[in-house]
């Protein structure tokens, strides 16, 4: 059986006055039904562009090459109308900022029933019942009253629950969650992450969870792709990644997370420097200028994505703990 989603050599670049900006470079990723993939990286690493490119939500300045195989069929060449048919029922997305993603002048009920009537052809009464059922599922108190409310009347956590209810309303097979908890408090974040995992198992959805925080993906994904400057630099099953980290970048990202066990007054290790200019295509490893282990080889030769066994791939000349 072919995987639910397979990206083959996906490239995305944007035309800018300074030249082509390569946001996503030769990405290969596979996701099975019911599986969860974490895409982790800093701002500007290309993680959001990756998920938007897969959904077909790129602006017209973007150029996309490579294959996007959804259930074995390449959807990258489909006309926009046909891709649209997949939205909601095939693939759905939850956006980072629940305030701006909801329409501020329309009632929650209208926004929640829209895809039900348009996509599933339900009549108003059925859609309303289904909407209430969905809101109960995402644990919204007083769902009937909620139908009449506007987004500004809700807290961030409630808005994100509404977004989730809208996204899963047409039982999609694949859910993209783009930093779904970044705008939320830690307590609400924990609740929302758990809800997403529950729903994924219940509907047997594939999920791509995009985040900058390794702590968020650790307990809620089956595998993780770490992105840096448009490249997938490490790609492995979650446990394998945490137990046997190969990329110095992933290690640095992990170390910079403040933890409760850290003694007070400790200086957090930081990643010095910044991402390379995405419009320049310089040779060598893109992380070399910030990597504590970098050598001359790293600055001149681009490391390939190496198969380290155990489905663990990394892009480094001198992986931590040695190569295979």
């Amino acid at each position, binding site marked *: 059986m072919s995987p639910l989603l397979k990206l083959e050599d996906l490239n995305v670049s944007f035309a800018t006055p300074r030249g082509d900006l390569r946001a996503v470079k030769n990405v290969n990723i596979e996701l099975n039904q019911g599986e969860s993939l974490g895409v982790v990286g800093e701002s500007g690493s290309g993680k959001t562009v990756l998920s938007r490119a897969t959904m077909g939500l790129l602006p017209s300045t973007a150029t996309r090459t490579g294959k996007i195989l959804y259930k074995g069929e390449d959807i990258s060449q489909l006309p926009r109308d046909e891709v649209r048919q997949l939205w909601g029922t095939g693939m759905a997305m939850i956006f980072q900022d629940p305030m701006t993603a909801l329409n501020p002048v329309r009632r929650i009920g209208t926004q929640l029933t829209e895809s039900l009537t348009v996509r599933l052809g339900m009549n108003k009464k059925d859609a309303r019942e289904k909407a209430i059922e969905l809101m109960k599922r995402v644990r919204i108190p007083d769902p009937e009253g909620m139908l009449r409310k506007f987004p500004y009347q809700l807290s961030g956590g409630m808005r994100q629950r509404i977004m989730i209810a809208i996204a899963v309303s047409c039982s999609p097979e694949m859910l993209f969650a783009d930093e779904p908890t970044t705008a939320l408090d830690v307590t609400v974040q924990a609740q929302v992450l758990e809800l997403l995992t529950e729903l994924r198992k219940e509907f047997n959805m594939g999920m791509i969870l995009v985040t900058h925080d390794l702590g968020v993906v*650790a307990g809620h994904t089956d595998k993780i792709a770490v992105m840096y400057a448009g490249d997938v630099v490490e790609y492995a099953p979650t446990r394998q990644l945490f137990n046997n980290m190969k990329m110095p970048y992933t290690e640095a990202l992990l170390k910079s997370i403040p933890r409760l066990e850290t003694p007070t007054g400790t200086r957090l290790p930081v990643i010095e420097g910044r991402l390379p200019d995405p419009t320049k295509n310089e040779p060598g490893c893109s992380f070399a200028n910030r990597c504590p282990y970098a050598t001359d080889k790293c600055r001149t030769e681009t490391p390939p994505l190496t198969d380290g066994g155990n489905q663990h791939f990394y892009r480094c000349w001198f992986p931590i703990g040695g190569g295979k």
Partner: protein
Amino acid sequence: MAGTGKAHMRPEGDRVLVVEDLTVEFNLGKNKVVKAVSGVSFDLVRGETLAIVGESGCGKSTLGKAVLQLPKPTSGSVNFLSKELTTMSKSELRDMRPAMQMIFQDPVSSLDPRQPVSAVLAEPLQVWNKGSEVEIDQKIDELLTAVNLDPAVVRDRRSYEFSGGQCQRISIARALALDPTMIICDEPVSALDVSVQAQILNLLQDMKDRYGLTLVFISHDLAVVKTISTRVMVMYLGKVCEVATPDELYTNTKHHYTKALVGSVPIPDPDRPITGNLIQGEPPSPMSPPSGCRFRTRCPQASEKCAQEEPELREVSLGHFVACHHPID
């Protein structure tokens, strides 16, 4: 507390700030009143970093702003450098402003997009006549260097040309410009990536050591405040729940709300998944807070007593205060 009390005050210390019974209410009309902060007391000893932690809507930002009289609190007293701020006239208050500064949550929107960095930093210095043009210029370079930005590169740029982390560095430089005694940092790292967050936390610590600052650090994330604070105050719905040193707070958590906060911190370890079960739902409306202990509606240990009697802050071990009728053993 989700209660009241002043057991945690330290009258013998060298106190920069003493806040007593501070209440902030917002009148919405039609007899609706939002009780954002209800009778909070705390003090700040010179050189310490007090972290105020709680969920959205617990009143932590309102409390921080009320200390700076932005706007003036509804009642209570704020004593800064032995002067009472709440009864001051506008001009008296203005004279106090250089000593108390603030850093805001969103670094991009808190900088004027039309002003170059040099103008952003020069403004406070010019307003307070801190020297000639040349001296001010030198001071700007010094400030930018202090926050690890290259003055030659950044001076003439505007805020939209910078990343979030760089904007936050500029905000810190601006707050430092008038040599303040105290800086209130309102969620300074919540809008930043984890890697940048670590840089800013380290920078704040460095600036504190270098300029002898006293900090109030407002955050919703206990792990973030752990590294830099010397004392943590946990707030819930306008009240104080627990006050302790960070190490004590994590190793010997007493309040059920603090426990939920500690348990919600995502741990980067696949074998220790976080669970959302520790605390369900969201805080009740601050327009009609529950009677007694304000946390009782979400507390697993709530009893009859919690509904009737408001718990007061009491010392459970040295320097550790909790407002709970049934603290965790």
